[in-house]
């Protein structure tokens, strides 16, 4: 009896230490664990996996740092998946102190994607450059022959000036592309500037070309111009190849993802976005007009959003379901903390929710589906040991309780 008394009145700080121990120890080792993927997570995964490339997926950041360890791996994993499937992400949030978490996840996700595909991108750029070089060589050869034929040395010199202009221009574009991967507008500004510079120089060049040569040697100019036209086509191709490579291997702000920022008042915004997103989000988080973001062209309301993913630690997913889901038929998935997950099962059964990720386990299941091990997978062993500790504590506590109850009854009798 005394033992039992002692056992149940043990200083709680000892239990606290035990808890730290069971979480800390497995964390120090990486234990690979295979596990099954539950129904809700598989459904959520399929909903995203079957979307057409280019579809828009809306992320709503409805959690804050109090649920960081649970919801962050989810948004990271789904960002990764979305970028891989070439989906475009609209980020917004309904919790002021939570939005930066989503922003970090998506921007880091884009950076990670870009880094993973950097080699491919560089390769594509180089390949395009080589293709162009091939033509350049041929082109210059043709020019030289023509020049020799017409004894026009000085025009060759002019032509080289133009070439160097073109290359200077392309270099500018290239470096702008690398420098402003995230900020598409800066990029465009740089390209535009390079273009204007080029035009100015080219205009001067044209004057010389027209003035001097045309009169003296129309035949030569014709050859020159035809060669240039041919070359020009290849520059276009080069340009297109660059743009294509960027599309394929780079995730850029404004094209592949946007951040609309925070607006207060959840329900009115959810309802209002069914009509027009711009009524609430006229500008993105850095005051750029939404209309000038390329990916927002043609995205006006839920009709243009394939899936809404709400990462939430409260009733937010239910709010999305009640307003965006019921009223506008928006397909919704959830990424929620363990506390919220049981609330969502009725909606899964009724088909109002396409799927959801519940807690760290849900996140780790998603990570296993996209084959990218993140924080959740690494946390799972510690999660298991802590569960076992809690179970053991409940059982010991209960058994002690039973014994004391019996003793109490005996005493009373």
């Amino acid at each position, binding site marked *: 009896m005394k033992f039992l008394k002692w056992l149940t009145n043990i200083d709680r700080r000892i239990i606290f230490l035990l808890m730290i121990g069971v979480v800390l120890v497995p964390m120090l080792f990486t234990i690979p664990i295979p596990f099954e993927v539950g129904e809700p997570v598989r459904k959520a995964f399929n909903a995203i996996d079957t979307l057409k490339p280019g579809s828009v997926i809306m992320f709503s950041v409805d959690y804050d740092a109090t649920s960081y360890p649970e919801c962050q791996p989810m948004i990271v994993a789904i960002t990764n998946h979305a970028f891989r499937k070439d989906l475009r992400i609209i980020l917004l949030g309904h919790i002021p102190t939570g939005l930066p978490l989503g922003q970090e996840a998506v921007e880091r996700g884009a950076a990670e994607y870009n880094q993973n595909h950097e080699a491919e991108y560089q390769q594509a750029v180089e390949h395009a450059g080589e293709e162009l070089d091939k033509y350049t060589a041929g082109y210059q050869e043709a020019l030289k022959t023509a020049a020799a034929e017409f004894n026009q040395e000085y025009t060759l010199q002019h032509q080289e000036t133009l070439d160097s202009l073109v290359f200077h221009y392309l270099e500018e574009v290239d470096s702008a592309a690398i420098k402003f991967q995230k900020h598409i507008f800066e990029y465009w500004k740089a390209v535009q500037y390079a273009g204007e510079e080029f035009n100015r120089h080219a205009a001067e060049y044209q004057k010389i070309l027209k003035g001097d040569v045309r009169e003296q040697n129309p035949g030569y100019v014709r050859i020159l111009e035809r060669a240039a036209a041919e070359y020009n086509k290849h520059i276009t191709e080069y340009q297109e190849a660059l743009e294509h490579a960027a599309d394929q291997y780079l995730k850029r702000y404004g094209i592949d993802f946007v951040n609309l920022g925070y607006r207060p008042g959840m*329900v009115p915004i959810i*309802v209002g976005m069914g009509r027009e997103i711009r009524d609430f989000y006229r500008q993105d988080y850095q005051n750029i007009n939404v209309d000038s973001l390329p990916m927002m062209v043609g995205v006006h309301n839920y009709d243009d959003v394939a899936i809404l993913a709400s990462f939430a630690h409260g009733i937010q997913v239910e709010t999305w*379901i009640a307003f965006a889901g019921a009223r506008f038929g928006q397909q919704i998935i959830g990424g929620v903390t363990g506390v919220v997950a049981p609330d969502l099962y009725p909606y899964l059964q009724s088909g109002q929710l396409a799927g959801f990720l519940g807690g760290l386990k849900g996140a780790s299941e998603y990570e296993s589906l996209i084959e990218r091990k993140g924080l959740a997978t690494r946390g799972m062993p510690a999660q298991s040991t802590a569960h076992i500790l809690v179970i053991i504590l409940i059982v010991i506590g209960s058994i002690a309780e039973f014994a004391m109850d019996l003793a109490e009854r005996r005493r009373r009798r």
Partner: protein
Amino acid sequence: MNFSTILGIWIAATLTIAILSFLYRDNPLYKFAEHLYVGVSVAYWVIYAAKFTMEQMVVNVFADNWRVFLETGSATAFLEAWILVIPTALGFLMLTRWFGPRVGWLSRWPIAFTIGLGAGLGITGSIQGILLPQVQATFLPLWTPDLWQVVANLLLFVGVISTIIYFYFSRPHKGLLGGVSRVGITFIMVSFGAAFGYTVMSRVSLLIGRLYFLVYDWIVGTVDFFKALL
């Protein structure tokens, strides 16, 4: 890793430990961290209100429309710009609360407006979004060729009905009603048990997150930082 990051990590680690120290007992370190938290989070709301409401929904919208009006003379743009005076004025009325009850009662107008809109949206939203679909999803045939499905449908049917009946207060829970509500409370207990398990899971995850930070970002990170320096 740069200096700002390592400094940040150390500050974060200190604060983490300060809060964890509450486990030993309530102490000045914990109080410090808690009070800091209150101040910092309020500052976030202020910045957000200023940026995302005052600037983006009021000032910039006004400016845009005003510019359009100046350029084209459009009456709609003029109206669109000046109609913003209404919500802004209502917003400032809301803040009359700052100055005590003598003028504070003015805040009732904007509050009445938001409460009314919220309640109105809530009625239709709750009926259309939750009540009808949830009831509809419970319309289940209790017979299918798949036996497991039969069990599931039956449990769902019985569980939903008995739970609703448990919260029925107009009759004493005796006889049939008592039996059904007894079944209901059994379902409720299973459901609460599940919630209990999930909550434990959730709380443990938070701890994992923080300890992970302490071990990998703080200790390992610091070691890496100094390794890189040397």
